[in-house]
């Protein structure tokens, strides 16, 4: 027997095995290389996300004040329940915990979970706002078992006076997927709360501040280990409105449930003192994630509470349009202050009989009396002489059909009819008879209360500043007026102002707007919403639905006017009874706020000016 066995075969095979070892190890090296070198960054990020939890600290939005420094929109802090979806271990268990422990509604949570398409997975989603102390305590006690849940103190908008000035302040809400694509919201990410309406929307960038965050180290169970860094949230800049809450409150209470609108502004600066639209809504509903049902209710209300009527509701101006007619007549030299017209209660033109509101007629009247008593016949005849093109031209020069320069979105521009418009829109020529209706503010002419107010402002001061809601500069209000400064004869303007004064102070149609001690001037309007012929076919109840809109536009005081006011009450009846008293109350409050009593006891209003902060 050989001392050494012949084991060459075995050793040969063993060398083959060795080759296998080396090949397998090379494979392992390759995988190791791909993990640590090729995909290093990816895994580094994953590791970072694993152990570093970023807790957002939402920046409170800037406060919004009225012109006297009173807080209109504030923030309160509440505890919100957050779900970190990347931490979820077992969603059913989490759901049961929330449903059984906190009494949350399973469907509501499920709905929120399902509607997270646009969120980044690492973005915590809010499951419930405003936890009670009991709920907070319950959650904190079980935090360690549920690392996917978090409680966060977050600021929330609170509108101190609920619906007061709601259309001005607006509301906030989560940025929508569509908005994220717009440049306005390019710095936002899904889940951010942004301004959606009102100045909250227009001044969103200024108000929203910058969110902070805390980065903390957590272990695999989500337990807090240490804070890595902390970026303090920066509160948004504050905003001071031009609104005077005293006047605003008076206007809204006078309007009641309306529907109606009031706008008042300073004709020298364009600062809006009152912007009231009723019925209204409570922006606090939106701050707390409005439900679909509440939203539907707001939208289905026939009186459109979401609409800012001062800017978005267009209608016929009625007799308030006579101011513009008068100015056009004077400027074109068709009439002067002595031109006399006979009103016999009606006049026959182009084969139709056009009535004055006073069936007995006004007799021989001049322009001053025609405005004072709102005589239709005077203006029918003036309109006939002016013609449609001149009426349209002067309407535009007084700002109808164009923006008032407001720093809110969604302003309606209305409609100034003309021959071209009729041909293009209706495919028919303009009929001369239509000019006659237009002369008293009826027909296809559509204006917003804000536009009428600005037209009155031009008459009152000769100036046309942009109307705006925020003191100082604003992005939507360029320093230079958008609207060309009108060039009207001061004498003609003075004639109209005098006539408007007499309408209020000398027993005219606007007499209900008179405020003792305050030289109010104004013009009423009673805008028909249906024709007389149609009205005759309706029952009394139906006719009630089509009551005319009551208008009043005016300014005060007569010398060097400081406040322009326009009031519209839909279905309010005649302007003299439906709108003028509301204007009176607002002007009265204004007067009482600003009058100064001289040491010798004489009342001297408007010497010392208003804007003192409280």
């Amino acid at each position: 027997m050989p001392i050494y066995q012949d084991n060459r075969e075995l050793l040969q095979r063993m060398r083959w095995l060795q080759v296998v070892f080396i090949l397998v190890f090379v494979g392992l090296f390759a995988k190791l290389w791909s993990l640590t070198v090729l995909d290093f960054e990816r895994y580094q990020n994953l590791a970072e996300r694993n152990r570093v939890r970023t807790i957002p600290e939402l920046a409170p939005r800037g406060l919004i004040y009225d012109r006297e420094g009173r807080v209109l929109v504030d923030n309160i802090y509440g505890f919100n329940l957050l779900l970190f979806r990347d931490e979820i271990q077992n969603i059913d268990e989490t759901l049961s915990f929330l449903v059984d422990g906190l009494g949350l509604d399973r469907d509501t949570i499920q709905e929120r979970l399902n509607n997270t398409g646009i969120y980044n997975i690492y973005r915590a989603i809010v499951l419930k706002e405003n936890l009670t102390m009991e709920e907070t305590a319950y959650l904190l006690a079980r935090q360690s078992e549920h690392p996917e849940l978090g409680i966060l103190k977050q600021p929330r908008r609170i509108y101190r006076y609920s619906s007061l000035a709601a259309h001005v302040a607006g509301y906030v809400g989560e940025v929508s997927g569509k908005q994220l694509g717009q440049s306005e919201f390019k710095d936002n990410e899904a889940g951010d709360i942004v301004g959606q309406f009102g100045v909250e929307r227009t001044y969103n960038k200024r108000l929203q501040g910058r969110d902070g965050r805390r980065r903390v180290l957590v272990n695999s169970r989500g337990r807090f280990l240490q804070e890595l860094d902390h970026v303090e949230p920066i509160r948004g800049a504050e905003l001071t409105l031009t609104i005077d809450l005293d006047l605003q409150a008076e206007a809204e209470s006078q309007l009641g449930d309306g529907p109606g609108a009031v706008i008042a502004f300073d004709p020298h600066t364009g600062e809006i003192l009152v912007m009231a639209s009723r019925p209204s809504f409570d922006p606090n509903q939106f701050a707390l994630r409005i439900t679909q049902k509440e939203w539907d209710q707001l939208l289905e209300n026939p009186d459109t509470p979401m609409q800012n009527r001062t800017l978005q509701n267009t209608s016929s101006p009625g007799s308030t349009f006579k101011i513009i007619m008068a100015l056009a007549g004077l400027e074109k030299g068709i009439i002067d202050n002595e031109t006399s017209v006979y009103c016999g209660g009606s006049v026959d033109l182009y084969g139709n009989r056009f009535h004055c509101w006073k069936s007995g007629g006004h007799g021989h009247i001049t322009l001053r009396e025609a405005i004072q008593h709102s005589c239709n016949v005077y203006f029918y005849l003036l309109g006939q002489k002016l013609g449609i093109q001149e009426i349209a031209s002067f309407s535009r020069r007084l700002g109808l059909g164009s923006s008032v320069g407001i720093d809110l979105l969604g302003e309606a521009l209305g409609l100034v009819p003309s021959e071209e418009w009729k041909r293009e829109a209706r495919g028919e020529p303009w009929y001369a008879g239509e000019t006659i209706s237009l002369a008293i503010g009826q027909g296809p002419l559509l204006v917003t209360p804000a536009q009428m107010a600005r037209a009155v402002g031009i008459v009152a001061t000769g100036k046309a500043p942009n109307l705006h809601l925020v003191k100082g500069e604003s992005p939507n209000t360029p320093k230079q007026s958008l609207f060309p400064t009108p060039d009207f004869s001061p004498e003609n303007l003075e004639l109209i102002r005098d006539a408007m004064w007499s309408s209020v102070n000398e027993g005219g149609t606007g007499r209900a707007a008179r405020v003792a001690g305050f030289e109010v001037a104004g013009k009423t309007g009673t805008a028909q919403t249906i024709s007389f012929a149609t009205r005759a076919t309706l029952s009394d109840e139906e006719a009630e639905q089509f009551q005319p809109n009551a208008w009043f536009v005016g300014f005060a005081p007569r010398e060097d006017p400081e406040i322009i006011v326009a009031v519209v009450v839909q279905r309010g009846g005649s302007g003299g009874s439906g709108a003028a008293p509301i204007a009176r109350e607002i002007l009265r409050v204004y007067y009482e706020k600003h009058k100064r009593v001289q040491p010798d006891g004489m009342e001297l209003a408007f010497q010392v000016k208003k804007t003192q902060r409280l």
Partner: protein
Amino acid sequence: MWTRRFLSQFDFFLFLAVVILALIGALGIYNASAGDGNYSLFARHLLWVGLGVAVCLFITSIDYHFLTDHAFLLYGLTTLLLLGILVFGTEVNGSKSWFAIGPFSFQPSEITKVVLILVLARYLSEISSSYLQPRHLFTLGALTLCPMILITLQGDLGTALMYIPILFGVVMVAGLRIRVLTGILMATLCVAPLGWFFLKDYQKERILVTLDPGRDPQGIGYQSRQSQIAIGSGGLFGKGLGQGLQSQLGFVPEIHTDFIFAILAEEIGFVGSISILMLYLLVLMRLVRIAESARDRVGILLITGVTSFIFFHVAMNVSMTLGIMPPIGIPLPLLSYGGSSTITTFAALGLALNVHQRRFVCSPTSSADSSSPRSYLQASLFKHYNS
């Protein structure tokens, strides 16, 4: 026995490489403990390594022929032990494969691996033909399957499965005709889908998750994924010792045991972990060298068993850690914490050192001077019958 002659034959190279690996393992366990500041596992591991070295040297000092002679006796004893554990064992992590002795627990399914190596080498050494016959394969299969079934019954499928590569390695070296090999592979491929029905749900899930890691990022795939994140975030040079936050903060499971490679890779990076793998490769190469110098057939077969054991454990554990394979609970020899595994590995390496020690026939430490295994075997069997 610790004479100068003995020491002069001792393979210090292999021994040193093994001890270095064990110390790297200790370092990994130390750093893995940094997260909770409890270093008792580290202390225990050192104790196990010490014990392992002792077992290793002890086995080296006994002539391996004595061990192969009594292989079947040892095999019978361990089978009894495995049966006993089914009745008296302690359940750990869902498997009833532990004996608790005081504060220490002990896993007989690990040490059985060494006994299996002995039995397989012993049986094959008696076959002188170039290729194994089907009846040989049948006996070998039965010898391997018996402990495997008992261990699977204990609920430790991972450990049981590691017996197959040991058998496979040994059989490959012992000689298998290509057509037999193909036949076996084909049969395995046909039977494997059937095996699916015998797997428990969590076992199926593990396999599915490895095929599709996105399947369940927080559940079972979580382990693989977290391990990959730890390794990947280590980068080329690692985050530095003690800086492996990913592992220390508990994101990687079983960090002291099955996933020890993850924390090391996270802390010492690609360069460091490649060095560890190179060290393993060096050990494997050295084992092949020892086989080449082995005196007899049984020695070569013993080394083959030990080499397969080390290779498949390392390859599968690292694959598991790198996310190539489902996590099935295989420790990394010498690095993972665990008494049974450490002692078993040292015992297996003791066998290899043993073969190296007695590579020359006239070695003074050789206890028998029989030149033929066959006659040696007969002599020893005779001895048995007499005793």
